[in-house]
């Protein structure tokens, strides 16, 4: 157990092997994988980092263990240590037993017997985990050949086809001969899963398998993992930072912090009855897509401890609002808490915490900020940005010398919307739907753009000279997705923030004053201005990026996925900051995000884009609570909710296939090829979808509301583009997990 690390010289005479042998005996005999006292150390410039400190768990056959934690908590290192994939420079101690056989200390060659056979892994990035020069068939057959040398060629091929069919790849026989680049990201991840389950593994480790994918594709891949587990009966270790993803899948959860498990237990206990403040904070930091009520998120302040120094007290104490002096005396061991037997937490106060304690009180979430614009009706506020029928078409040409135009990619196709003062407008959609192109079109601000962009009363049609352009630049600033990439690594914070100010012609003294103001505004220590970006954490870097955008006092800030690169707890802090700034400075935001929960939390209005067109637009609560377009419905249903009960029982629409290429968009409705409603329609009605393009229509007020009101109600702020919004989705695309009985207690 982990307490033995600190035990020191007393245990010295007892050899590590003996100690582990004793520990191994405690493991339940039927566990397929049991890990005891796993420790991993790395060497860095600053000293030896103790990345994993005493991880213990037992995995029962056919069960799913979810390992959750922030980046740097040691989740991935644990999985790599089990697989024996850590670099030789790392020191791994402890015991990993697969069906009673010790895996640690085996040579690379001996490990190969297990890897891909009884132990298999699915990696995070599907784009780089397949070899580009071999066909996927080759790569699946390779996995089969290594562990079944006696298998005949035909048998292997037949099995490969079976596997591809199992992970839901259409026409598997033909696709066997396709190369990885001919597959989309989601499809490649399916192939990775097929390779992983090729030899009927007993344990399948999935390391953030859906983090790099779109929500709709994530839902598909999670579904495939689910089937794969059912087919092979493998135990799954699911590593993720997204509490929603594991809520519906896992049987047990292990929350890791600073290289140690801080809370373990059955999934329901962890979600409904957390006993460790860190777990509570994590749950409170995630915005919920299914909740309309506006409340601030819970930020966990500070950052994870430095694992170079052995912690003397509870490693979470510096960030814990409940910490007392007692917390600083010795690291608490993982101890059982009152309630279910398997539920354990590493907190001396676990007895007094539980489901009935409100996390907002514990973590002192800031009050919901109120903007001065909130009271003014939207129609009376002035417009800061207006797009009128903006199009961006890329010609697709063929031929080296004489370029023939063979088609057009309609990245953005006739977009119109406006943003009023003090409001946050979001654009959501899968990748490839044209969100980023829209942003670039706005930022480029060219005269010869197709369509009109009006920023603060300045139209792009008259932006000929540099003066108008720089006036426009002062109205509009941008915050980038990747806070690290957006800051020049060679600039100090002062230089980063001074650049826009100098450019606007501000003198030195004023620049200095303004920079100090900005630092305070975004919640950074003013005397940090002389530091370089690499000396800050991800959340702080994003704050610097926000400060830079605010430097010239813009009216509108364009946010391109501002929190998607951040950890959950840090993300909450940045979202709260954005909310506060919007209210206090009267800013407007144009937000592009794929995380609908974040969108729901922060925005006032939302537009759903599909293949360059807006399919539904309106007030955020109306669109999310009462989605009319089938695509919006599918998007919303694809988002996992951090609520195990709900997640297991709710009905989900799983879209078939990927986003079609915008090259050959159909004549009628763009969405018809994947539409769940379309699939269930009679042929006569399908004809209409295929030939006519649905216009954006106003939603009529509900009949009930109309009868109640004396005079005709104003139309609600919601428009959508679909002929059959009330159509029932196709049965095949609906999935309910509970019916499978897999997760029944």
């Amino acid at each position, binding site marked *: 157990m982990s307490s033995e690390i600190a035990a020191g010289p007393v245990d010295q005479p007892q050899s590590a092997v003996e100690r582990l042998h004793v520990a191994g005996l405690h493991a339940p005999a039927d566990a397929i994988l049991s890990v005891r006292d796993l420790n991993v150390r790395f060497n860095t410039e600053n000293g030896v980092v103790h990345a994993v400190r005493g991880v213990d768990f037992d995995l029962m056959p056919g069960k799913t263990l979810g390992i959750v934690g922030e980046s740097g908590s040691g989740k991935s290192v644990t999985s790599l240590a089990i697989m024996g994939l850590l670099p030789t420079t790392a020191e791994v101690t402890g015991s990993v037993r697969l069906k009673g056989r010790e895996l640690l200390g085996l040579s690379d060659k001996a490990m190969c017997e297990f890897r891909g056979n009884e132990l298999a892994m699915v990696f995070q990035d599907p784009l780089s985990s397949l070899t580009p020069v071999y066909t996927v068939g080759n790569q699946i057959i390779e996995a089969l050949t290594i562990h079944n040398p006696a298998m005949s060629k035909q048998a292997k091929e037949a099995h490969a086809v079976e596997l591809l069919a199992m992970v839901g790849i259409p026409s598997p026989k033909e696709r066997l001969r396709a190369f990885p680049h001919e597959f989309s990201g989601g499809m490649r991840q399916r192939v990775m899963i097929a390779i992983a389950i090729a030899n009927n593994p007993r344990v399948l480790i999935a390391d953030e398998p859906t983090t790099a994918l779109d929500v709709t594709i994530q839902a598909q891949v999670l579904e495939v993992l689910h089937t794969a587990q059912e087919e092979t009966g493998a135990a799954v270790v699911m590593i993720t930072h997204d509490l929603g993803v594991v809520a519906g899948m896992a049987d047990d959860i292990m929350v890791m912090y600073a290289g140690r498990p801080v809370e373990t237990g059955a999934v329901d206990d962890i979600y409904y009855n957390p006993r460790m403040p860190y777990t509570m904070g994590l749950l409170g930091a995630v915005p919920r897509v299914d909740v309309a009520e506006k409340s601030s998120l819970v*930020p966990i302040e500070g950052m994870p401890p430095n694992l170079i120094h052995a912690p003397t007290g509870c490693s979470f104490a510096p960030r814990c609002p409940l910490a007392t002096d007692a917390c600083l005396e010795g690291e608490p061991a993982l101890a059982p808490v009152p309630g279910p037997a398997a539920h354990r937490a590493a907190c001396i106060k676990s007895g007094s915490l539980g489901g009935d304690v409100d996390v907002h009180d514990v973590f002192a979430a800031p009050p919901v900020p109120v903007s001065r614009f909130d009271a003014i009706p939207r129609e009376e506020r002035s417009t800061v940005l207006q797009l009128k029928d903006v199009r961006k078409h890329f010609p697709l040409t063929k031929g080296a010398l004489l370029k023939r135009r063979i088609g057009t990619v309609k990245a953005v196709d006739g977009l119109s919307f406006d943003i009023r003062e003090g409001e946050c407008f979001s654009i959501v959609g899968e990748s490839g739907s044209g969100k980023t192109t829209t942003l670039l079109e706005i930022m480029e601000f060219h005269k010869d753009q197709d369509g009109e962009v009006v920023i603060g009363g300045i139209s792009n049609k008259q932006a000929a000279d540099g003066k108008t352009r720089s006036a426009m630049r002062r109205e509009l600033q941008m915050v980038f997705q*990747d806070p690290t990439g957006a800051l020049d690594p060679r600039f100090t914070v002062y230089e980063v923030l001074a*650049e826009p100010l100098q450019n606007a012609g501000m003198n030195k003294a004023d620049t200095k004053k303004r920079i100090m103001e900005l630092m305070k*505004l975004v919640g950074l220590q003013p005397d940090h201005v002389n530091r370089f970006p690499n000396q800050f954490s991800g959340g*702080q870097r994003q704050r610097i990026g926000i400060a830079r955008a605010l430097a010239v006092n813009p009216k509108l800030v364009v946010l391109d996925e501002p929190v998607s690169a951040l950890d959950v707890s840090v993300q909450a802090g940045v979202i709260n900051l954005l909310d*506060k700034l919007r209210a206090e400075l009267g800013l407007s935001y144009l937000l592009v995000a794929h995380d609908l929960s974040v969108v729901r939390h922060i925005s006032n209005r939302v537009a759903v884009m599909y293949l360059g067109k807006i399919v539904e637009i309106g007030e955020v609560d109306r669109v999310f609570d009462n989605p009319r377009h089938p695509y919006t419905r599918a998007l919303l249903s694809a988002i996992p909710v951090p609520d195990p009960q709900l997640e297991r029982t709710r009905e989900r629409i799983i879209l078939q296939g990927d986003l079609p290429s915008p090259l050959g968009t159909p004549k009628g409705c763009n969405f018809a090829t994947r539409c769940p409603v379309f699939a269930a329609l009679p042929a006569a009605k399908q004809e209409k979808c295929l030939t006519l393009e649905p216009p954006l229509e106003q939603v009529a007020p509900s009949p009930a509301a109309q009868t109640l009101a004396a005079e005709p109600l104003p139309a609600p702020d919601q428009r959508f583009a679909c002929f059959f919004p009330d159509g029932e989705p196709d049965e095949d695309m609906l999935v309910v997990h509970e019916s499978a009985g897999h997760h029944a207690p």
Partner: protein
Amino acid sequence: MTNLNAVDPAAVAQDAHLESADVVIGKNTIIFRRFMRNKTAVAGLAIFLALTVFSFVGGYFTEWDKQTIDPFNIGMPPSAEHYLGTSQAGIDLYAMTVEGTRISILIGLIVGLVSVLVAAVYGCTMAYFGGKVDKVMLFILEALIMMPALLVVAVATSGGGEGLRRDLPSWLLLIIVLLVFSWMGTARLIRSLSMSLMQRDFVKAAQYMGVPARRIVWRHLVPNIGSLLVLDITRGVTGAILAEVAFSFIGIGIKVPDVSLGVLIGGATSQVQTFPWMFWVPLTVMFLLTGSLAMMNDGLRDAFDPSSSSSGSAKKRTALKARVKGNAS
């Protein structure tokens, strides 16, 4: 409403954390440490520095110089009077080696530094402007690459260019010719590197702020390819020294009365049997010179490369610590 001037407690906590845990190590410190950890590279640096010092002060240790003929010692092996012997013409080899090393290092350093500078400016300009500018500049670059450098050197230093040769010492002429033909490869590398930098968000951010192009190239692009430039300088120095030796060896580089390592080696090849010291001494010096640079370059690459395993293994250190602890208890 919350107070705008309140400092975020999260930031304060993080700050305290950063300060107490000394996690912040300057990048230069890290690079220096990593370089120093590579023993070969440090040895290379020491040899190179020693040779440079030798080439400047070595002349004071002997009364002979590269022109004075000693009629009593013609073609003599090393002796107390002539440390490294004399040539066929009776000139002191030690004096010639000192002079030759200096000229070779001079050529190497000037060509290495200036060609990288030219390449950096040229490459960044190509990458930033792109389009037509890029096409024309790339065409010039390709044309220069395809030009037979050997012939041009031969013509410039021996055949034509009478006026040039009268006005300039032969080593300066060689430097100019070498410069013209040495920067293209690096420029192309820098072009592609800057093109990928152009895609980075901080360049986009500067553009969206309306920062003018010249400022972006100078403030954002050039500093960010700094580590590549340092590596390329050492590589360029080696290349220039080798080129000088090669050209002088075949008789089209440095001309007598100027001496360089190449001239010495080239002149002695026919007499390896009779005057072996005339051949082996300059050859050894050349090996030391280029070899030390190569050793240094390897260490620099390790130091600059963030993915290198230069920080070492955790196993060795903890094992060592455990042993120390075991001994103590």
